[in-house]
């Protein structure tokens, strides 16, 4: 049974699906990079993209419409990759998330019962963390459970 308000985990999975689909595009710079959701029990490899729905708040009380704060984090080992490789990966993921049709694409994802109204409030940050380059793409998603 699917629960109507399980929007954050559905969104994480939908974002993971988006990035995974992008990996299969010919010439993709993220082709060899693992993609995990924020809450995951999988082993973490050196290079990783994490799709994390960090927090959700109901936008209009009682409507079941949520604004979910998300981050997509691109971790690239500085020991095995150049900075140029990392920047290419981050740029590619940014374009996936900021594509005009991204809400439509998520809504067409039959595996996740979620309706996205908008992705908005994008912000970028970057840092280094334990010998990794890290690119952080954060944004809000306004959405509701579909069934």
């Amino acid at each position, binding site marked *: 049974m699917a629960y109507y308000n399980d929007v954050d985990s559905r969104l994480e999975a939908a974002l993971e699906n988006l990035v995974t689909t992008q990996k299969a595009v010919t010439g993709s710079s993220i082709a060899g990079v693992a993609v995990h959701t924020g809450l*995951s029990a999988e082993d*973490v*490899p*050196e290079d990783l993209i*994490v799709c994390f729905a960090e927090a959700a708040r109901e936008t209009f009380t009682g409507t079941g419409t949520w604004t979910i704060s998300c981050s997509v984090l691109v971790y690239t080992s500085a020991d095995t990759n150049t900075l140029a490789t990392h920047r290419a990966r981050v740029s590619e993921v940014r374009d996936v998330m900021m594509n005009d049709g991204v809400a439509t694409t998520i809504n067409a994802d039959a595996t996740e019962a979620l309706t996205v109204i908008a992705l908005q409030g994008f912000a970028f940050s970057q840092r280094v963390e334990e010998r990794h380059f890290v690119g952080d793409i954060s944004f809000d998603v306004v959405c509701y459970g579909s069934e």
Partner: protein
Amino acid sequence: MATIAQQLAEDFDAVIADFRVTVTIDSVNYYGTMSETTKGRELEEGGMFTDIDAIITLKSGDFDTKPKAGDKIMLADCFECSLRYEYYRVQSVEYPDGVTLRLAIIGLNP
């Protein structure tokens, strides 16, 4: 009379004889020993991080080019069976005397 360096080398050889590890760096095997090993698994955003820390001590003179932080190594043989055939990243290299060098290593997930 043996020099201090020779005595250190002989002492280290005795340790290797009992607690030997084989470390593969750039397809070349080196022999040494291991200490201060801790193993764990930390759950963080994105999944489970392998948390293996160890100190590998090797003969400095065995190397034409010394290992450096960031190098990827494999333990081809180890008295601690669960660490064999696994890959590790060198975190730091210490030169405590004229004979040995110590590698602080962390585990890598596959």
